[in-house]
């Protein structure tokens, strides 16, 4: 387990190395970045092999940091964080493979990219709320530069909107945490200590603190109606950043809700639970319908991310072990699938055709020009629709079952959302890749497009392999996740054991 902290250090060191290598050539920076991401991922996987699932966090590093406030540099992991660490490594590695064609200021690009990754690893490993917050901020800043410098359509606007929303969210979180720290008279920011102190709050205080902290995190998770930054930002971002933002960074918000907001304020959660569940299912359906009428390939995927993250929030709102387990599984699943969808839309299609308008793509008959991209997108689309055999199915099924136990109306609306997701996915697949029957297909060769590269094929194979593996053997992750949810920290908020 002590390998895990090195995933953070390796990523930060790699960022510096990539910056230096970028002065020599873009290729050097790429290889440094790939080696760094793969090493960090390898460390996580090696640690995962030795991991024994148990209830509660297992400390991997602990040192004093700011004794005055009882803040410690405390890193720990359980099945939930491990799942997300594996996802981070996978998405980071695949993202670099899908930015293999990046030439402009490659050193800086990969430096920001790896800093973001290091911050994300840090968040998933923090057992101290203050440390969590520090890493969380480290992850937010590089996002701005990645979009503003290397982005496409309306990149300044997208970058600014995304970062303002993120900072607003973290301000709420900080306010809530400081309130809890001050009012509770706790002498540390360790999550367990804060939770113990929170037991003494009045119901009113709990409601207020929970609202601040949960809302702050949920903004980053794309909770309806605070989601509008997500499609704009993800569409403007360069491919690798879209993959990472939708795939991993949105999970930071959901992870914060689960790791901090829920255990600290069980009474507050109980009060707000109906509202959260209602917003979650509203977001699932609303974002699905918006995706159905978008005319921009990346916006369809951006809204589909909001819809899928609605399932994560629904899983948390249901307040039972099964649904929360499904939510964590869905975080993993959506991370992989969103990565794949953005990779096709951004790298395979946009970088070659230089258009994202569905009307233009329809005329290209990409199914014939780029058969590999078509096959990958069909697979990703099926996974995104929740087709059995892919990771989206076990996660959405467990969330539905868990939600049904709490509120049947939520489950019914969410199931309708699955149908809407199917509708917009089928639409975008047919329009983008299989043209319209009426139009004459251009003869092959009239639009010579660069062939799909080996890097893209490798990245796609990694992500497809992951979604299939977890789709067919969800037990691999559930056996880590479910025991962790039986930790004493969650007993007050998550009802019911596993079946």
């Amino acid at each position, binding site marked *: 387990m002590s390998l895990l902290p090195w995933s953070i250090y390796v990523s930060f060191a790699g960022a510096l190395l990539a910056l230096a290598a970028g002065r020599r050539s873009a290729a050097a920076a790429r290889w440094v970045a790939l080696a760094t991401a793969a090493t960090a991922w390898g460390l996580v996987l090696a640690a995962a092999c030795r991991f024994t699932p148990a209830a509660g966090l297992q400390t991997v590093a602990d040192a004093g940091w700011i004794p005055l406030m009882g803040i410690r540099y405390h890193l720990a992991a359980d099945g939930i964080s491990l799942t997300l660490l594996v996802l981070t490594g996978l998405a980071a590695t695949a993202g670099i493979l899908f930015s293999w064609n990046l030439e402009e200021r490659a050193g800086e690009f990969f430096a920001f990219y790896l800093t973001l990754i290091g911050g994300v690893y840090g968040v998933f490993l923090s057992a101290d709320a203050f440390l969590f917050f520090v890493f969380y901020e480290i992850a937010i800043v590089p996002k701005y530069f990645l979009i503003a410098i290397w982005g496409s359509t309306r990149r300044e606007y997208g970058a600014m909107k995304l970062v303002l929303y993120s900072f607003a969210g973290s301000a709420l979180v900080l306010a809530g945490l400081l309130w809890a720290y001050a009012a509770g008279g706790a002498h540390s920011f360790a999550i367990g200590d804060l939770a113990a102190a929170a037991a003494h709050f009045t119901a009113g205080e709990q409601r207020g603190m929970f609202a601040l902290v949960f809302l702050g995190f949920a903004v980053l998770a794309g909770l309806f109606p605070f989601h509008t930054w997500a499609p704009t930002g993800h569409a403007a971002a360069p491919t690798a950043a879209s993959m990472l933002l939708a795939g991993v960074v949105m999970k930071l918000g959901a992870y914060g809700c689960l790791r901090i907001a829920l255990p600290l304020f069980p009474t507050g959660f109980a009060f707000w639970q109906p509202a959260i569940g209602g917003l979650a299912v509203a977001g699932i359906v609303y974002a699905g319908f918006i995706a159905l009428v978008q005319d921009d390939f990346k916006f369809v995927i951006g809204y589909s991310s909001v819809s899928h993250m609605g399932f994560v929030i629904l899983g948390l709102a249901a307040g039972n072990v099964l649904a929360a387990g499904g939510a964590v599984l869905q975080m993993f699943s959506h991370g992989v699938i969103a990565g794949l969808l953005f990779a096709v839309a951004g790298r395979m299609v946009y970088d070659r055709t230089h258009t994202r308008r569905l009307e233009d793509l329809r005329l290209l008959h990409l199914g014939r020009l780029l058969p590999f991209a078509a096959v990958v997108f069909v697979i990703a689309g099926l996974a995104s629709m929740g087709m059995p055999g892919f990771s989206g199915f076990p996660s959405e099924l467990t969330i539905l079952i868990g939600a049904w136990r709490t509120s049947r109306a939520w489950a019914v609306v969410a199931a309708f959302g699955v149908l809407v997701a*199917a509708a917009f996915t089928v639409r975008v697949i047919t329009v983008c890749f299989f043209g319209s029957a009426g139009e004459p297909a251009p003869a092959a060769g009239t639009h010579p497009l660069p062939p799909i590269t080996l890097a893209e094929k490798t990245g796609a194979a990694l992500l497809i392999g992951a979604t299939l593996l977890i789709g067919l053997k969800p037990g691999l992750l559930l*056996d880590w996740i479910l025991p962790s949810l039986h930790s004493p920290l969650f007993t007050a908020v998550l009802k019911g054991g596993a079946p």
Partner: protein
Amino acid sequence: MNALPCLSLIVFTPWAGALLLALLPRISGGASRVLALVFSFSTLALALAALGSFDRTAAGFQFVERHAWIASLNVHYHLGLDGMSLLLVLLTGIVAPAGLLGSWRQTRNPRLFGLLFLLLQGSALGVFLALDFFHWFLFWELSLVPAFFLIKLWGGADAARAAVQFILYALAGSAGLLLGFAAIYAATGSLDFEGLARLAAAGTLHAKLAALGGFWPKAVFAGVFLGLAVKVPLFPFHTWLPSAYAEAPTGAAMFFTSILSKMGVYGFLRILWPLFPGPLHAASVPLLWLALGGVVFGAFAAMRQSDLKRMVAYSSVNHVSYCLLALFAVTSASAGSGATRGDFSAALSGALLQMFNHGISAAALFFCVGVLEARSGGRRGLGDFGGVRTSAPVFAGLCGIALFSSLGLPGLNGFVGEFLVFRGVFGLAPWAAAVGCLGLLATAMFLLTFWQRVFHGPRAGAAAGSFADATGGELAVLVPLAALMLLLGILPQILTAFYNPLITTWAGLLPPP
């Protein structure tokens, strides 16, 4: 044979073929066709091999494979074969190669066509053999993907719309199924069909769902019902069917009508009836009307079609509805109604036979329409042909056998199934049998119209000039199918022997007369 995972082999061999085709991008069109055909024959070969050790006296599942799959969710990899599934596996084994031969001459990307076809075949087999909802639903949903692309990429002029309509209807049904089973799992913690059927028989499942209160128990039933009804399709959930079948390429249309529709009927018999006997009984009168709607409306709609393929498609609505008519009549019986065991057995036995018979006859009819289309450059209107009998007597004879089998002429297979259905329904719900006769009448009218306008009279339309008789490849499909129709018309016990113990068990579960 028992040592081998026989059922897994049956399910996954077609998928192995699909994988092989996927891995051979440079294979020639001809070689890919042959490869697909060989793999699609595997089902029949393996099923016949398994037949040797199939115990015809047992009612339960045989060749069972059960392994833990997702331990934390109590999900199992669970396959099993009984008389009903055996019947459908055999049907799949016969119709799948016939379907591939039915589209043998289409030239656009035969490798991808064969690949999707084998995927579809494997998915259908999985549906007929899987006994855990999680496992079963995987195949149920995956079957939609190849079906969608077969319509979309090889279909007629309106294929894009038909494909989207097909998949949206099917997914809406699946959402209902998924939600229904989410509720069942939340209540019982199990997704195993056998276990749930035992719970239902003991009344536990009903009690647990009733604890939901309000309209929710009914909603759970409605969700599962809807998912299956769309697939069959049961009137009025059939509106996707005519365009999907008519736009699909010949081979796919054959497979859809024979196998996909049976997946729905199979679901009614395997899932809905054992799990929800109470709600089915309570709703049996409206359900009988829906089945009758399919029987009568399907036949009259077929009569109104001028497009032969759409006519055959509507006739499928009509024929499949007989299976459900029989099931709903069985569930309508209550204690003391005077219905006899013989009525039950006849209705159920008829429903199973009808599944098989319709599969054979409808596939042959779609194949014949495909032949007419190929000869006439894509025309398939009722008025586009005339006098085909004189220029293509062999083809006319074989197509006639399929038409008359579909019509229910005694001596051919269609008669036996429909006779048993009516024999059973007459004892259980005489009024429904009476209304259903209207459908029989209309069926006879449109099938005879088909026969007369296309094959008789002076040569006309596309058949005015030279009209070649059946080729060797066409005979290879039509002769075995026609022979089977004759054989099963005379010796239906070849099939009934497989599932008689099952029928006896089912009939024993029913309320006393």
